[in-house]
């Protein structure tokens, strides 16, 4: 498939809005999931670190 020019490639034979609208939203959604997963992992580690620190403090005050 030879598109000839960037204009032709982006135009997608007049269906550019539909084709690129599909691919763009797919990309955005997948990237959003990846970012959400990275953020979630950081959040879980941060939250649990605080949770264990609090638990340790409680043990120390009890003893």
């Amino acid at each position: 498939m030879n598109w000839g020019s960037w204009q032709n490639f982006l135009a997608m034979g007049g269906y550019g809005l539909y084709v690129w609208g599909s691919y763009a939203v797919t990309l955005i959604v997948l990237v959003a999931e990846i970012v959400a997963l990275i953020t979630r992992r950081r959040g879980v580690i941060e939250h649990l670190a605080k949770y264990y620190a609090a638990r340790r403090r409680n043990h120390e005050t009890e003893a």
Partner: protein
Amino acid sequence: MSKSGRFSWFYFSSPQSFYPLAGTLQPWFAALAVILCAVGLYISFFVAPTDAQQGESYRIIFIHVPAAWMSMFLYLVMGFWSGVGLVFNTRLSSMVATALAPTGALFTFIALWTGALWGKPTWGTWWVWDARLTSELILLFLYIGFMALQAAIDDQRRADKAGAVLALVGVINVPIIYFSVKWWSTLHQGASVSMTGAPTMAKTMLLGMLIMALGFWMYSIAATLARVRCVILERERHTDWVAAEIGAQT
């Protein structure tokens, strides 16, 4: 590997031993996903020819069909692990089911979105309430319902059980989606790939679609593994090994 030194599937059914395995495998599946999607996209846009009937609008097929396949396949996998968790009371199975749901919902959304953008130029409408589209929308609601139900119940075991029942009942929707184009008259075209009939697509079109499907599959595994690791840490926080793991990470 069990204590006796032999490989055992039961060994990896414990969250503690599955957590590092998932961490080791995850980057490989992510890398495979990137490679397959890059090759798939190249074929989709630079190798596959223009469609004789639909022109260039058909190129949406390279994400639409793989996303629709993944939406149904992931639901079946989620139903399977929910069922295993329900019957054998294995915690890891339920965690995997929980981790699959968001990625499944996401591919369902992509299938619906790209379907609407493909429907407009081909049928002249974004949406019709026909069997294929409606049952796929119900699939999205099933995924969302599963996640909402699990999130709404505080007791983890009860949440797993309730979610598993919902997931299993919902499995009936998957064959309905798949065969809807045969059972009812619909605007939607028939199956893109048939195991029995003669091939209806150009070979390069089919190849692009299959490679994209493999790419989405590998992506789903990578995303699910990453998510199940978070779920394991959250749910097993009372154990010493998670405390040690967090200690090593911070």
